[in-house]
C-alpha cells in the first residue's frame, strides 16, 4: 500500500494543534500560553489547506496569528505584572 503523505502530514499537524492547545491551558506563564495559542491558530490555518480552502488559510494566518494574538500580548504586557523571577511589580 502506498504511503499517504497527505494523511500523515494532516495527522502530524492535528497532533501539534492538540498538544499546543493542551499547553495553552497548562502553562504557568500567560505569555507562553499566548505563544502556544498562536501555534494552535497556525495549525488550524494549515488544516484549512487540506480542505482546499487556501484563501481561508491565508486569512486565518493573517488575522489570528498576525493580529489577534498580538492584541492579546499587548493586553497582557500592558497590565501590571511581576518581572520574571522577582517580587517587584512593574
Amino acid at each position, binding site marked *: 500500500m502506498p504511503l499517504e503523505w497527505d494523511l500523515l502530514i494532516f495527522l502530524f499537524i492535528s497532533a501539534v494543534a492538540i498538544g499546543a492547545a493542551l499547553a495553552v491551558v497548562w502553562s504557568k*506563564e500567560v*505569555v*507562553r500560553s*499566548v*505563544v502556544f495559542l*498562536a501555534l494552535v491558530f497556525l495549525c488550524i490555518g494549515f488544516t484549512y489547506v487540506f480542505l482546499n480552502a*487556501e*484563501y481561508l488559510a*491565508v*486569512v486565518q*494566518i*493573517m488575522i489570528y*496569528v*498576525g*493580529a489577534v*494574538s*498580538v492584541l492579546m*500580548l*499587548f493586553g497582557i*504586557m*500592558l497590565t501590571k505584572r511581576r*518581572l*520574571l*523571577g*522577582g517580587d517587584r511589580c*512593574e
Partner: protein
Amino acid sequence: MYIDIWQFLGGLVHWLLVDIIGPILGWIGFHGLESWLGSPGVLNFVTILLVALIVFTVGMLVAITHIWQERKTLGRLMDRRGTQVGPIGLFQNFADGLKVLVKEAIIPDAADPLVYNAAPVIIIGVSLFMFVTIPYSQGFYVANPQMSVLLTLAIFSLVPFGVLIGGWASNNKYTLIGGLRAAAQIIAYEIPLLLSVIGVIILAGSLNFMDIVAYQQSHVWMVVPMILGFVVFIISMNAELERVPFDLPEAEAELVEGWMTEFGGMKFGLIMMSEYARGFVGASIATLLFLGGWDMPSFLQFIPDELWFLAKVFAVFGLFIWIRGAMPRVRTDQILAIGWKRLLPLAAINIFIAIIFKTLGWF
C-alpha cells in the same frame, strides 16, 4: 529572455540520477536502488530541493549585497568611504558574519529560555519564508500560488509577534518597551500598506504576482495611475522594516538597541540579516506591484529578465537608503498619528481613484 529554472534543474537532476548514478548502481548490482532513484517522485523531490536551495542562496546573497549597498551609500552620503575589506568593500559583511559566528551563545540568566530561543527562530524563519513567493522572472521562482500577493503580505504580518515575544522574553525593560513600540508601529502601518496594495489589485484584477506583472507589461506600469498608492506603500514599507524615519523601536540613543538588546552572537547576526532579507522582499514587492517587475523597453530585450528585476530592486532599496540618509527620526507621539491620520486616508483615496479608473476603463 528568462531562465526556466524548473526545466533546467529538472533536466540536470534527471541526467545526474538516471544517466550517471543509475548505471553505476546497476553495474554494482543495486537494481532496486537504481529504479527507485529513477522514479518520478524522487526526481521531483530532488528538483524541488535544488530550486529552493538556489532561490534561497540568491535571496541571501542579494540581502548581503543590500547591507553592503546601504553601508557604502550611507558612507558616501556622510562624506566617508564606508566598508573597506576586499574590493570596494564587498567582503566586509562576510568578515562581520564570521566574527559574529565565533561569539559565545549566551542566554541571559533572568530570561525565559523557551520563548527567548523561539523568538529569533520565528523572526528569521518568517523573513526567509517570504523568498518563496517572490518571482524573479517567469521561470525563476519556487512557488506560484494563485494568491501570492496576499500570502506574502500575510507572512509579513507574522513579524510583530516574534518581535513582541522576543522583547518580552529578554526580561529587560528596554527590550520590552522596544518590542511594544515595534509591534504597535508594525501593526499600525500594515493597514495603509495593505490598502495601498488593494488599488493595484483592483486595476489588475488578480492576486497573483505573475498576472499583475503581465498586466503591467501589456498596459502601463502601476506607478503611473497609482502614484499616491506608491508613495503610501514606500512610506509604510519603511515603517514595517523599522528603517530610519521610523526606527523608534531600536532608537539607539534612548533604548540602546530596542528589542534586540539582549540577543548576542549569531542570533543577533541572523536577526540583522533577516531585517535586510525583509528589506529585499519589501523592495521586490514594490518592484513587482508598481514598477513593472521584469518589464523592460523592447530594445533592451537581450538583458535577462532576472537582471532587470534585480536592478529595479536595488534602485528601490537605494531609495530607502536615501530616505534613511536624509530624514530625522519621527517623534514617539507623532508616529501613530502619521499612520492613522495621514497615510490611512491617503490609501483610502487611492482605492477610490483605482475604482474610478477601473469603471472608466482608462488603464
